[in-house]
């Protein structure tokens, strides 16, 4: 059997040396880091309503270097979502989603949603106060959807209340279903990038091996050092154990849900639940909507649409900063 190694001689556009144009590769590395540290955490984590908190406590405070592995996983997840978010902003600003790269955008959008799902199911497994009440609010949001809400909530919780069945279901989602879907969509995303290319092609090229490989290795070493440093300065902590009778005051989700959290505080419940779903569809199908708009209304419509997009990005950033401060 002959293996085609021709791709090793490939040359890449020089724009890939610019960090903002090479942001897509960072989440890819972080995904592998999440899988690796996730497997290491599984050695000690117990997916049980009674013992989950104790097992995370043991990992964090008792087991040698447990704080480091948990720190890599925790901050790795934060950075994973952050870099996808940055990558998404760069793609939006430079209009890199334009034809023929519409489906690259769609798969990227799905990857962002999946990473948010991985974040939510991940911190729900700790079973401390934040995790318990975040699960409670998350399932209530699902439960308030019209028609299918109650069934969806029962499906996630495995019953009417948060119990062992909830932990088991979130665990299955977090360690199996979501990573599998992530891997699948990453593969499709990379295939589409290779098929339709990057938005800013350059005349000047540089070799994949060794130059680009060295660049990727240095990014890998930098990120690993950076996350280790963050874990050492701010070791991952654990709140109080889940108490279903007491909602802590000033409870907040992780930073990446702040825009939704703030929105839910400001608007009636139905709007707070239905608008984000509507926005999600607009977001995923944005390149097609923009193309349609351009055909119907010309440049003015596109300008309006992109202004609305920029305003939404600004809202996201402002909500994250506001809720981080207050």
């Amino acid at each position, binding site marked *: 059997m002959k293996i085609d190694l021709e791709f090793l001689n490939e040359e890449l556009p020089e724009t890939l040396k610019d960090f903002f144009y090479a942001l897509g590769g960072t989440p890819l590395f972080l995904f592998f880091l999440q899988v690796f540290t996730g497997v290491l955490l599984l050695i000690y984590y117990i997916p049980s309503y009674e013992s989950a908190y104790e097992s995370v406590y043991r990992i964090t405070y008792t087991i040698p270097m447990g704080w480091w592995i948990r720190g890599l996983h925790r901050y790795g997840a934060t950075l994973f979502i952050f870099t996808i978010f940055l990558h998404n902003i760069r793609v939006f600003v430079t209009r890199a989603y334009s034809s023929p790269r519409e489906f690259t955008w769609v798969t990227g959008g799905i990857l962002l949603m999946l990473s948010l799902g991985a974040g939510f199911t991940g911190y729900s497994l700790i079973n401390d106060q934040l995790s318990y*009440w975040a699960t*409670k*609010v998350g*399932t*209530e*949001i699902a439960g*308030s959807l019209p028609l299918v809400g109650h*069934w969806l909530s*029962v*499906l996630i919780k*495995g*019953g*009417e*209340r*948060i119990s062992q*069945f909830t932990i088991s279901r979130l665990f299955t989602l977090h360690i199996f279903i979501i990573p599998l879907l992530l891997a699948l969509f990453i593969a499709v995303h990379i295939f589409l990038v290779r098929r339709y290319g990057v938005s800013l092609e350059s005349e000047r090229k540089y070799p994949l091996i060794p130059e680009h490989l060295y660049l990727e290795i240095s990014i890998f070493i930098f990120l690993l050092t950076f996350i280790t440093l963050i874990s050492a300065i701010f070791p991952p902590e654990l709140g109080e154990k889940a108490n*279903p*009778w*007491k*909602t*802590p*005051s*000033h*409870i907040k989700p992780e930073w990446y849900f702040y825009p939704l*959290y703030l929105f*839910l*505080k*400001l*608007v*009636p*419940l*139905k709007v*707070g639940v239905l608008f984000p779903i509507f926005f999600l569809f607009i977001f995923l199908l944005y390149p097609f909507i923009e193309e349609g708009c351009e055909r119907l209304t010309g440049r003015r419509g596109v300008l309006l649409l992109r202004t609305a997009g920029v305003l939404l990005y600004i809202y996201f950033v402002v909500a994250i900063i506001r809720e981080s401060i207050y």
Partner: protein
Amino acid sequence: MRQKRRFFLSRIILYSVGFFAFLTGFKYLWRYMVRRVKGESVQIFAGRLSDMKEEVKEIRFRDEILLIIKKGEKVETFSSTCPHLGCKVEWIPSEKRFKCPCHGALFDEDGRVLSGPAPSPLKKIPTNVKDDEIMVEVGFYYED
């Protein structure tokens, strides 16, 4: 022509059987994933009216906290679950109102929404006082 018709009919039958097999499979899968909830109402003893020293008394029943509020000789009970997204509201004695710590909904002592995103008042729980005994009716739900 006859052969075409036979082919068409056999395809229709095949797809119909496939579709019903899928529906049946989905039904049983759904039955496995979503457990049925059964329930009934039960009356529980929540304490003596004469023992209520403070305005609001909390009693715990499974995951639920019931808030019994005393207004003279009258007693009302509310569920502490916020109708917005399920967090537990708390009684603030100085302001005589219930506050939800999650998204900031405020309710007055009759459970009505004062401000914030809650879509409805706090759920009122049927309550009886007989011979100084406070009895509240709660749903006792369990999954099969």
